[in-house]
């Protein structure tokens, strides 16, 4: 099983590394942003999909990361790499704090509280314009000192690969089993010796850390950031990506993020209507096929294999 996963990861990484040949700058930019959203979607999936903590604050942590590096570079004069590290630390710390604050909250109460947190970040960034420059936007130096799309493509591919490797190790270890147990039945998990408090905090911290890191890299890519990074529509996008790809599956959020990002970029002419379109897709998926594209793909694959090797199927049943 693990060897298969490793092989799949190598093929995917090699494919992604080779793809830029023959892509124009616009397409490179689209996929690069797709990688950014994939990190956000995958880390939200760790919280909501694997652990059942339906937090609505992910966009807040991306913005915190972006502003942490931007402000520390402008006001403290730290180098970019240190700004990014600070961003990861700030988001991780805030994630831990939010986790502590919401420890005893379930379901809708957790959702409302975390949403409140993200809105607070949004409003603070807007209203604190003396510091953040508000809607005018904060200028941030670019990571590589240039705007070469190909370089940033590889930076974000690397970021995604590292994030996924960390998430994979967590989800496929003992810890991953504990997280699923907490999602399925927290009371039962505790009664069998799982320190539910500790693992929930761990998940909040890790998911915020990765998101803050991605937000910081994003800031150094787009060079001007605004409070709209913490807008609720950003979270909606992340949720749509995860749901379409397959919540609680490992590959789902990545596939969903890339697919949605490609579609929104190339369906751009519909303007705000693409949001309506995605909302409809989500409603239909939740009603009919809650496991998303990954599960659908798995089922089709099994059908295909059964059709190609009818005997194997019979043998497996017997």
């Amino acid at each position, binding site marked *: 099983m693990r060897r298969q996963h490793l092989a799949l990861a190598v093929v995917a990484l090699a494919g992604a590394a080779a793809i830029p040949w023959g892509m124009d700058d616009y397409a490179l930019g689209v996929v690069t942003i797709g990688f950014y959203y994939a990190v956000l979607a995958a880390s939200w999936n760790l919280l909501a999909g694997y652990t059942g903590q339906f937090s609505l604050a992910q966009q807040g942590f991306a913005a915190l990361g972006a502003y942490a590096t931007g402000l520390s570079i402008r006001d403290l004069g730290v180098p970019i790499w240190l700004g990014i590290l600070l961003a990861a630390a700030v988001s991780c710390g805030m994630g831990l704090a939010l986790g502590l604050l919401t420890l005893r909250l379930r379901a809708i109460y957790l959702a409302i509280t975390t949403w409140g947190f993200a809105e607070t970040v949004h409003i603070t960034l807007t209203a604190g314009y003396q510091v953040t420059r508000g809607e005018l936007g904060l200028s941030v130096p670019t990571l590589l000192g240039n705007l070469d799309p190909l370089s940033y493509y590889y930076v974000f591919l690397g970021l995604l690969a590292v994030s996924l490797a960390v998430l994979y190790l967590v989800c496929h270890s003992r810890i991953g089993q504990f997280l699923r*147990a907490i999602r399925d*039945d927290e009371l039962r998990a505790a*009664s069998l*010796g799982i320190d539910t408090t500790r693992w929930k905090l761990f998940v909040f911290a890790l998911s915020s850390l990765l998101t803050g890191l991605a937000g910081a890299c994003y800031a150094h890519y787009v060079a001007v950031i605004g409070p709209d990074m913490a807008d609720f529509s950003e979270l909606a996008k992340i949720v749509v990506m995860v749901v379409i790809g397959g919540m609680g599956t490992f590959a789902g959020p990545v596939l969903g993020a890339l697919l949605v990002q490609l579609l929104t970029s190339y369906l751009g002419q519909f303007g705000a209507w693409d949001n309506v379109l995605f909302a409809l897709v989500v409603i239909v998926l939740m009603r009919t096929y809650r496991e998303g594209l990954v599960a659908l793909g798995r089922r089709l694959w099994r059908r295909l294999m059964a059709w190609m090797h009818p005997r194997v199927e019979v043998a497996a049943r017997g």
Partner: protein
Amino acid sequence: MSSEALLAVEGVSKRFGGLVANQDVTLRLERGEIRGLIGPNGAGKTTLINLISGEESPSAGEVRLEGRSLLGIPPFQRARRGLLRTFQVPRLFGTMTVRENLLLPYLALGGRDRRAGRRRSDELLERSGLARLAEEPARHLSGGQQALLQLVAGFMCDGLRCYLLDEPFAGVNPLIKETMIDLIRDHNRRWSTVFLIVSHEMPVIRELCSRVTVLAAGRVLFEGTMEEVARSREVVDAYLGREWTP
């Protein structure tokens, strides 16, 4: 008392606002004992289980395991000390397979050797008759099978000292009930594990338990063997009904 009981409940009371669920309950279970806990609905049996397992904390009194107080110890740490429980309505990890439901407590309680865990789960799957369902998600099981799996999961724990079972046989068919009784008895014999079993099923309690405690209106009404219980006027009046015979 010459030696400390394995599980000691000392003068425990629990009030929910004006409602008194448990009043000055004292219980002492010796190593290797299987104790029945019976009483009418609303007698405070489940509350007592919750107080022992740590889901609720007592308004007064204390619970001790092997002489150590459990005051302020959260449920997950009680589990690590070998105190496990089941729930009246079976609680399982629904999206996990039957086997994963067994491996989880093994991992959670410090089991490191995956191969040993797998061997243990194989053995328990075989003995509980759940082997052919090993790769099914637990939510697909019937009610009786879920109750069985919930019970068996506790046996994955190496250091199980005391197992609290809240209505383990409710709605379970006779065949599975037999399996459960065998497993409980076997584990008790092999490891001297203490069991505290809440049940309304008198024949099963009779078969399994050397002593029973009768709870009524939150208090201990009686404690003794099943025969003594049946002879006690008080208990028969309060709970068993006049026409009941042992």
